[in-house]
């Protein structure tokens, strides 16, 4: 326990505390830090310009989350419906991209999406002769990159409850007169929501703070908070403001994680209470 705590303190708590402290100082005239206390940096976070970037990031992360959940849930559903012995094979293929580096996976999308990339060539091969479509350096490219990178999390998170679901529950619903769609909506979906929530929180938190994907696939034109923080530290040389932005981002992530933990806890509490009732 103690080494773990020391590790956590040295590599998590201390750096975070330093960044937090930084956010309360002024920026020096020629960069650097002027050690006088101020709340200006936090005020600036709420400036419409920067708040807009927060909202934009949340929107992009939200869209990526939605798409990843839909595709990931469908994939997990298909895997859980496959013959038992094939399921581990499909899961292996689903997480296979994880074995390569994040940067390389993102670069692969540049190869796919650029003006003379694979997709354009494929279109040409089918007889398309017009202007090559602009796909790279769009918001769509950023979302595609985020969805692609975090999809395996959703598949794994949704597969767990789906594979544990008693198949007779769906049959019972059909037997009682429900269509396949109603069975999905009223039985399968409610029983697998915890997996969806876990996967969605994962994608959202990782997406909203991401700066590599927007930088590479968005070409810097679609700034997200991650890029903004990066710029403050490394380009604008305004460390205190960068620190305040980073803190705001951490606060958003914590809020999302805590909400999910609270809801999951409440669900688990209900289940435990229910179990206790049966024993009593």
């Amino acid at each position, binding site marked *: 326990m103690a080494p773990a705590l020391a590790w956590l303190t040295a590599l998590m708590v201390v750096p975070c505390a330093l960044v937090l402290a930084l956010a309360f100082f002024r920026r020096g005239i020629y960069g650097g830090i002027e050690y006088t206390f101020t709340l200006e940096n936090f005020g600036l976070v709420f400036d419409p310009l920067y708040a807009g970037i927060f909202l934009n990031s949340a929107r992009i992360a939200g869209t990526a989350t939605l798409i990843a959940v839909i595709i990931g849930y469908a994939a997990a559903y298909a895997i859980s419906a496959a013959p038992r012995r094939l399921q581990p094979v499909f899961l292996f293929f689903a997480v296979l991209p994880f074995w390569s580096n994040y940067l390389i996976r993102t670069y692969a999308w540049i190869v796919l999406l650029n003006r003379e990339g694979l997709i354009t060539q494929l279109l040409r091969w089918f007889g398309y002769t017009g202007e090559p479509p602009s796909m790279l350096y769009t918001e769509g490219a950023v979302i595609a990159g985020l969805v692609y990178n975090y999809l395996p999390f959703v598949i794994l998170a949704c597969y767990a409850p789906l594979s544990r679901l008693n198949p007779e529950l769906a049959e*019972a619903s059909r037997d009682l007169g429900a269509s396949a769609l109603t069975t999905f909506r009223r039985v399968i979906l409610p029983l697998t929501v915890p997996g969806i929530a876990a996967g969605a929180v994962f994608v959202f938190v990782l997406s909203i703070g991401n700066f590599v994907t927007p930088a590479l696939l968005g070409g810097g034109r679609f700034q997200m908070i991650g890029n903004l923080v990066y710029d403050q530290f490394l380009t604008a040389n305004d460390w205190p403001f960068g620190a305040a932005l980073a803190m705001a981002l951490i606060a958003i992530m914590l809020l999302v994680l805590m909400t999910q933990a609270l809801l999951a806890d409440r669900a688990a509490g209900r289940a435990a209470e229910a179990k206790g009732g049966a024993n009593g």
Partner: protein
Amino acid sequence: MSEPRTLLAIDHVSKNFGRVTAVDGISLDIRENEFFALLGPSGCGKTTLLRMLAGFETPNDGRILLDGRDIARIPPNKRPVNLMFQSYALFPHMSVRANVSYGLEMERLPAKEIRSRVDAILATTELVPFADRKPEQLSGGQKQRVALARALVKRPRLLLLDEPLGALDKKLRGAMQLELKRLQHEVGITFVIVTHDQEESLVMADRMAVLKDGRLLQCDTPHAVYEHPADRFVADFIGVMNFVPGKATADGVLAANGARITGKAPATLSPGASAVAAVRPERIRLFPEPQTANRTSGTVEALAYQGLDLQLHIRTALSPKPFLVRVTADAADRRPVAAGDTIELGWNAADVRIFAE
């Protein structure tokens, strides 16, 4: 009494999975308001047959006529048939009331009617105090009643029950057997129960079908199946039976040791063919009268006292396995026997059944 009406006609139904034939040309009729049992060892095809009646499997061949209409290809949500699952398959995220209401909501009935019908069935199944509980807060017996209520509230033409008592302990099972029969009378719905427990079918069923390897061996009342089994397998599967192997003769079986067992042989059995003579343990008398048709002597190997009666294992020269004999407590008290005793036993020709081996 008028001729009982056929509700469900299973007409030459076959089902195979790949190269495995699960159900092989079964035909049988199930009558209105009947408590019908499909009985057989595991793998006999009874569950596949049940799933075809529910609509979860489609027969490769044959027809399933409900009220004269072929339902073989109608999906499960569109047929007036409900299934009570072996695992009960209660929806864990819904209360007892929500579970029971679910099927009526699917019929889009007015909320008021749903409420009154659910209330009524909860009262019938004695579940009113548990209406707001979740399935995991219920005992095994309560879950079983919820599963039953959920299916019955739909007022199906036919209720299918897949090993309904399998998950209950022995004592509760006995009580639930009678409870199910009472309920079936009360609601007036035809029940088809699948079970591997021959005792269960004898107790509950009005008529029963014995299946083996996807084929129907016998379909009759429990009494007829028990007293006049169609073949050696049925004789062995239902209840306990003593077998004496030998060769068929004109008036019985010639045992391996040369003894003659007198009994009525089926006409299809030609003299000299391999055959077995069979007799139920409760038909055998100890210390038989001299004029008893079949008599032998044996050594008592073991005694099992069962309260109501006494079971004896008696080694005889007639068969490789010891004879099982059931004597009432009364008779056992009158002439006590002990292990190691050599005693006479006998049975009437009318109690002998003879089958091809």
